[in-house]
């Protein structure tokens, strides 16, 4: 198990480093000169030169990349062009909202999606199954911002039960979490159902029946544990998807989260903040993926010995299912 852990760890660090280099390099090509943005039209040549010097923009690419990586390791992501505050603190002050939204939604999704998927697969082709399958298909086909607006329309505008924007107290969180929660419960339900159906036709289930095991015990002791891996994969993908895609829901509900922050900074051409924000989200996703990989090892003893060969097969089929 330790070997598996370290292998994945090295892999994770590599991906992170590559991401930093990639994103940093891409931002080099971003349009607009930050110096001009900050000084506006009236800057004199000396002010321009001085500011350029101060921001370290005159140095060659490699030097700036190096000092950025160095800073990254020390949680120093530079200063925001817009506010002048350290990017890191700007990110940290907004991140909790995105985190709460993400994990709250995924928790809701698992709570609804897994039981629904189990019932749906056990009673295949029943009325229940057909309804749930259709609803979940709807859930994965609908953009989150639309679901959000529909919920606002129904619960805020028409019924007046819940507030449409803000994050001041618990009731402000209900609609946002519901929006993303419904979305992810749809994808979790679909994956649970198909995974269970796949497992149920395996030979070892027949063996369990031949031993005299009851259907109920078969579901809980044999089917579910084996069906878990693809479900885990979907949960991981959805968490990462939400960390990046929460911007949509944050926009509709005017929540000051990290997603909305990055978007605003892009519009303002505040590149250090954009850079820092994007890399922060990437870092979190890489860590989440790593944790999920570790969980695979716990759930499936084969993976411990095969260093994740099985996992990549499960992932290859469902990867790139992004949020929306």
């Amino acid at each position: 198990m330790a070997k598996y852990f370290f292998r994945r760890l090295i892999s994770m660090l590599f991906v992170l480093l590559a991401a930093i280099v990639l994103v940093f390099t891409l931002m080099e090509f971003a349009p607009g000169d930050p110096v001009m943005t900050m000084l506006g039209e009236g800057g004199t040549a000396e002010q321009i030169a001085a500011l350029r010097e101060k921001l370290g923009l005159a140095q060659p690419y490699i030097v700036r990349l190096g000092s950025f990586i160095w800073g990254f390791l020390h949680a120093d992501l530079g200063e925001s062009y817009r506010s002048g505050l350290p990017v890191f603190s700007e990110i940290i002050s907004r991140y909790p909202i995105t985190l709460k939204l993400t994990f709250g939604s995924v928790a809701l999704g698992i709570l609804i999606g897994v039981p629904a998927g189990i019932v749906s697969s056990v009673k295949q082709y029943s009325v229940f199954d057909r309804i749930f399958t259709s609803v979940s298909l709807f859930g994965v086909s609908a953009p989150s911002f639309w679901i959000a607006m529909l919920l606002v329309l129904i619960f805020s505008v028409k019924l007046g039960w819940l507030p449409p924007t803000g994050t001041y107290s618990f009731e402000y969180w209900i609609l946002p979490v519901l929006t993303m929660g419904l979305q992810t419960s749809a994808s979790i339900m679909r994956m649970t159902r198909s995974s269970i159906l796949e497992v149920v036709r395996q030979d070892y289930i027949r063996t369990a029946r031949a031993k005299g095991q009851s259907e109920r015990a078969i579901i809980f002791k044999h089917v579910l544990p084996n069906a878990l891996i693809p479900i885990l994969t979907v949960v991981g993908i959805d968490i990462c998807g939400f960390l990046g895609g929460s911007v949509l829901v944050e926009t509709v509900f005017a929540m000051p989260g990290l997603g909305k922050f990055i978007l605003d900074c892009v519009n303002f051409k505040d590149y250090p903040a954009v850079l820092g924000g994007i890399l922060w989200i990437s870092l979190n996703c890489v860590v989440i993926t790593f944790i999920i990989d570790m969980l695979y090892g716990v759930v499936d003893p084969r993976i411990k010995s095969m260093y994740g060969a099985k996992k990549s097969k499960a992932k290859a089929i469902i990867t790139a299912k992004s949020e929306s």
Partner: protein
Amino acid sequence: MKKRKNRNGQLHDVWRKLKMNKLAMISLGVLIMIFLIAIFAPLVIPYDYAYQDYNSVLQFPNASHPFGTDNFGRDIFSRILYGSRFTIFIGFGATTVAATCGIILGLMAAYFKKLDNIIMRAMDVLIGMPGMTLLILIISVLGPNIKNMVIAISIAYTPAFARVTRGAAMSVINQEYIEACSAIGANDKRILLKHVFPNSMAPVIIQYSLAAGLSILLGASLSFVGMGVQPPTPEWGLMVSDGRSYLRTSWYMSIIPGLAIILVTIALNYLGDGIRDALDPRLNK
């Protein structure tokens, strides 16, 4: 000679199975209809999508404006019909580019061991970033317009195609008939094109239909936050955003474009599920 006949026989089989799936066929019909609307949009729409009639501002859906009008007096029905162009272009354009690049990369990674590591590590980096984040990053560098949306979304989905192709190709390559081809002197390119590629395609086709739906959703999301097409383009995601301020009274402005998005995506999903079931050899016994 025989192999080609087999493949056409297989194709015929798959199509026959697919035809039996009513939902998939309805979805196919819907998609074809949307394609046609997109192509013939200017001929089909009752009003010019950009025409602003200040006498008919914010009208609830009625006889002359089946989907109502927006705050500029523009007919929403026409805008939705015309907007199908963007949806189709972005969704299928980006997915096709992603599929092409992904398939090439995946085949190379599967066949040439030396390239495998590099290619897949690069794909890992791209996958490590959530879709929306990657898209915002690319658009912020390139600028928000439809061409860049297609580029950005293609980049986001290329790794998925690369992975699926590589996986399928590797299992084909491990089979002995590939070794047999090599033994009789076929060169790499020929083996790749004539044997590995066609036999790896099943999961890729499924991935295509999934990715097309997701691309459409991503494209709409980008436009919604202003990182995609710009006003007054009648792109459905942008239309949902346009209607936000009027949600209280003219909610149809936002809700209806969203329904259009959902319609296309659901159709793609049903079709994808149908193709997957038709391709599954086990479902026959």
